[in-house]
């Protein structure tokens, strides 16, 4: 069953742009990306849209649909009423390149600022041994497809451009947590999380978790545990004293 869907799509570039109205055919079982492709094929051949797998696994087609950060390929058209106007805009936290395509290089910069896994000095490659129970907690975070929707929705940088320098965002704080929970990682992640990656900016309002297409519990399983680990290291005098007495690392 087909109908004419009402779409409002942002067209423009970093110099300016506007929301333009379109009527596009919508067929049963389609997702927003299908309709955007049809719009591109039939009415706006110059419209820029980034996409790749159409299966919610590459993280390319991130955009904002009716104001909510979503993957266009995972947003079903049957979640809207037939007479509802569907507004599609680019992610609003990153600089726009053109139409629905944004420059997400901020995220690559932040990724480079997280030091890689650091094994203990007395272990050589091939000698790493660990048990499944020790690594399965952080395996949840490996599901991340780097769509950067969590970065897009995080108000710390979305609403405050000036915080971009000192805040890495939920995706990379999750990466720090993943490494800190790794049984063989020997780097100091806790001080770095607070001092270099800006964990203290996070006020755990859980928008990152709400928009994650992989349903990773970013706040509950990565950011809050990391905040507690930082509290151990920096804010808890009893834990600090206990570690001093027993002469063991926190």
């Amino acid at each position, binding site marked *: 069953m087909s109908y004419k869907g009402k779409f409002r799509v*942002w067209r*423009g570039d*970093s110099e300016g*742009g*506007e*929301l333009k109205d379109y009527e596009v055919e919508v067929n049963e079982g389609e997702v927003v990306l299908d309709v955007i492709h049809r719009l591109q094929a039939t009415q706006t051949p110059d419209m820029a849209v980034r996409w790749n797998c159409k299966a919610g696994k590459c993280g390319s087609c991130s955009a*904002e649909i*009716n*104001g*909510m*950060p979503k993957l266009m390929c995972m947003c079903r058209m049957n979640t809207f009423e037939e007479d*509802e*106007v569907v*507004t599609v*805009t*680019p992610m*609003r*936290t*990153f*600089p*726009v390149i053109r139409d629905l395509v*944004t420059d997400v290089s901020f995220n690559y910069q932040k990724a480079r600022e997280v030091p890689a896994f650091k094994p203990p000095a007395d272990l050589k490659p091939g000698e790493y041994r660990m*048990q499944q*129970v*020790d690594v399965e*907690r952080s395996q949840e975070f490996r599901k991340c497809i780097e769509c950067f929707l969590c970065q897009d*929705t995080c*108000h*710390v940088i*979305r*609403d*405050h*451009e*000036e*915080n971009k320098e000192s805040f890495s965002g939920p995706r990379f704080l999750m990466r720090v947590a993943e490494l800190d*929970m*790794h*049984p063989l990682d020997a780097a100091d992640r806790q001080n770095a999380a607070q001092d270099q990656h*800006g964990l*203290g*900016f*996070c*006020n*755990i*309002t859980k*928008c990152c978790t*709400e*928009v994650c297409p992989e349903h990773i*519990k970013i706040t*509950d399983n990565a950011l*809050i*545990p990391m*905040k*507690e*680990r*930082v*509290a*151990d290291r920096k*804010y*808890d005098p009893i834990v600090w004293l206990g570690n001093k007495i027993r002469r063991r690392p926190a």
Partner: protein
Amino acid sequence: MATGVDSPGRAQIGLKTARSDRWWLAPLRIGVILLFFVVYATIRIFMNKWYWVDEFHYLTPLYSPCVTSSCVEGSSHLGTWFGDFPRFVPFSLITFVILAGFRGTCYYYRKAGYRSLFFAPAACAVPEPHKTYTGERKFPLVALNLHRYFFYGALVFGLLNVYDGVQAFHGKDGGFGIGLGTVIIWVNLVCLWLYTLSCHACRHIVGGRLKNFSKHPLRYRYWTFVSKLNPKHGTFAMTSLFTVILTDFYIMALAAGWFSDLRIIN
């Protein structure tokens, strides 16, 4: 210079938010509930009366433990630690500080408060009204990192509430008895313990801080148990908020003589 979603280089869409759903409803609802609880609790702790039903040994959780010499006879289970407080000082002050501190620093209530009361942000992808934002890095918000100490306090008060719950099996003739008040007190106890044990600080303390679960199998089991409760922490937080109010109101009504307890046994 424009900032936020209107920052130079970003798509100039001309709308603060393009959300078309009723995004304001959830923060409004939670905000009303939180404000109601704050007003109710403030009034109740300054009342300094109607917290103990001597006939059935019901003590409201808002006044447990009652440890000043101003407490009515029979309500001081733990004895009298302090003399009379001045009239304007609530004699449930310690209870209030610990329990309000536990909820005030709780990760769930932080989310609820930031969204509903401070609009930081009110909802996802909805701009916050504040010009600057420093998060929880500076005083006083950096003190929220002390949540674990309030958790320890809440554990102690939880045990005291269990003691109060056992005392509430008190019949008219002095022997064993169960009334609607006893049931309400125990429902509240279950909700309070679910809320306390599902706490993120609890999850961290029992095992979350470890790097190697395999070396600590018992703590791993504790952590696994708390991890099952933790996803419902917000539900437990709000449910226990209502049950505390209900329990307190019921005991206040009995103590004030507004109605009498419905007795099931004795």
